[in-house]
């Protein structure tokens, strides 16, 4: 298998027809040629040109631990951003891949979450991963800016609103503006609650969990969330949100860059292992992130250590709320290394 020099390629491990088609379409649209192998052991090791992503369909071996499957694929491509998709027992296996392996992007297949947990589905009932999700993820890997806000997840030209936040009081006003926006979009009930919950948790994270002292230690993380905080003039948090009629996205960026993938996966393990009961107002449990994961259809973390963290929640608001929830949650983690060139960069 050969590719012209300079051609951008991706390697896909899958033998699920709809997955192969959707990946080829989405990555092809992003300018990336896809080379497919049915097993990790059969991945071509060279001549693929500039390999920009390695995507593993965990359904190729549903009985095998995701970390093992991924590790086998990883041996062939050492420094390429790794993505995983799954339909069989999707939520648990994708979280396994994210938490226990060096996978930075997990995307459930459409229809996966309507399957009985642990049950063997008829693979014909599964679709591939969401095309827009894949497309946006790969575009961002290729050349995304470090803080694009919500734009990559909405149709071009969709109006984007921005709010600056420096204090708990500002947070309340910002939250009101997002909820008012959702309300103006005709969102009601559960849909509006999902938007509110995601926005509030992202803002809380930026105000309480993100701020660091000069020595890099968490400044507000141990505070009761009901205790007001105010950030410095150069520590302003920016929230952006927009909606194109089908997708509503909220992004919150702070200038601390203190979030690590480990912190995220430590919290997401709680989803896999069972959510702990919250203690009112107590910080640090990571429950906010867990709740955001449960209401969003995509959760995107972009971190430039010491400089910037942007967390974006993408929510499907077209059709019924139930259908949106059944789409599941993709998670993407982008880390910009200080030299800008590190492995798994944007």
């Amino acid at each position, binding site marked *: 298998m050969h590719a012209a020099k300079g051609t951008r390629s991706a390697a896909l491990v899958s033998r699920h027809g709809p997955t192969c*088609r959707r990946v080829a379409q989405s990555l092809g649209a992003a300018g990336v040629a896809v080379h497919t192998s049915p097993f990790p052991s059969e991945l071509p090791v060279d001549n693929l040109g500039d390999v920009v992503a390695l995507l593993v369909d965990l359904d190729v071996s549903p009985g095998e631990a995701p970390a093992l499957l991924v590790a086998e694929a990883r041996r062939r491509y050492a420094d390429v951003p790794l993505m995983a998709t799954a339909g069989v027992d999707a939520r648990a296996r994708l979280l396994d891949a994210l938490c226990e392996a060096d996978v930075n992007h997990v995307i459930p297949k459409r229809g996966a979450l309507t399957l009985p947990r642990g049950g063997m589905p008829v693979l014909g009932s599964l*679709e591939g991963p969401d095309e827009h999700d894949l*497309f946006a993820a790969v575009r961002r890997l290729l050349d*995304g800016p470090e803080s*694009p806000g919500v734009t990559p997840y909405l149709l*071009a030209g969709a109006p984007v609103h921005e*709010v600056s936040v420096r204090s708990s009081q*500002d947070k309340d006003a910002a939250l009101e503006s997002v909820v008012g926006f959702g309300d103006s979009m005709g969102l009601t009930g559960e849909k509006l609650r999902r938007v509110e919950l995601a926005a509030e948790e992202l803002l809380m994270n930026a105000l309480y969990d993100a701020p660091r002292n000069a020595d890099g230690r968490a400044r507000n993380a141990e505070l009761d969330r009901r205790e007001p905080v105010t950030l410095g003039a150069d520590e302003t948090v920016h929230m952006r949100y927009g909606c194109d*009629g089908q997708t509503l996205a909220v992004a919150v960026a702070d200038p601390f860059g203190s979030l690590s993938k480990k912190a995220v996966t430590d919290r997401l393990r709680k989803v896999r292992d069972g959510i702990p009961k919250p203690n009112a107002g107590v910080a640090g449990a990571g429950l906010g992130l867990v709740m955001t994961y449960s209401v969003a259809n995509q959760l995107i973390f972009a971190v430039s250590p010491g400089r910037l963290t942007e967390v974006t929640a993408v929510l499907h608001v077209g059709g019924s709320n139930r259908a949106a929830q059944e789409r599941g949650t993709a998670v993407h983690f982008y880390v910009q290394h200080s030299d800008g060139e590190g492995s798994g960069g944007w």
Partner: protein
Amino acid sequence: MAGASSSGVRSLGRAAIVARHPSTLKHAAQALAVANLSSRQAIGPSFLPRSAPGEFELVILDLDIDASAPPVELCAQVAAACKDTPIVVVAGLNARHRLVQALAHPDVVGAVPKIGAWSESAANEAKLEGPDEQALGLGLRRRVERATQPSGPAPYLLAGTPIEERVIGGSADKEEALQALLADAARFGLSDEKIRRIETAADELMLNAVYDAPRDERGHPLYADIDRRTPVVLAAQAQVRARWGCDGRVFVVSVADRFGALARATVGAHIQRLLDARSPRLARGGAGVQERSGTTGGAGLGLVLTYSAANQLALQVVRGRFTEATASLHIGGSNRAAVARGSALYIYD
């Protein structure tokens, strides 16, 4: 202190919506919000307030409010209350037929099927969903924004989607552009049926722009009556701009000419040929979406074919300056599902 700002939003305008179907009201509300329009609901045309031109940016009319009434009659009732106000019709019951019929009314600038209503005719409203919120929202937003330049495919695609562009200076360039577009589409691993739909839409739009759009200084068509196999070379000021892009879910092709000769009535008349018991192919006397002057008798086959192949067809006209036709085709999921989404039509003039 929180500071708020937004980009790309015009001041809040008003729209009226004539509907009773809960799902349609819900979907339309989301779509109107995308266009930054507040809405006033009426359960029938007779409940609309009398309004002066411009008071409402547009009226959304659900033809299912009276599935037995002729669509043009319903539109006329709306027009009587809201004079000179653009009407966007939506329908789920006998959708294809009734939407096309509605295009005969001069105020109709949009025809949008409800989700799932195109290939299977629902017996009652209860089983229907509303129109696609995203597509309708975009359609309304474009109308409110009133762009004075060709918008191209970008509004239909995720932000940041790469756009390919070719300038077409004649029939040879047209062929080269079409092949480049098809080569792009082939890279995505699309099925043959999807490729065929894309090819049909792109070919017809380009043919129209090269053969039907060019006019002489008196406004008469230059090449409309010649055989499409006859090579033509366009003057520098008549060159055509073709753009396309794909975000994995939607493939969009836009073709713009520099004449701006297309009229709303012509579009309606051509599309209504779909209702003719005879195939539009039988009536072919020259393809084209451009307004024909005199008796050249174009069948508008290109427009009909493009409309049938596309999930959205948007026609933007700035008279005397340009006409841009944009066809948006769903390529995510199966081709059958894409075709079942039906065809929406928007005219921006």
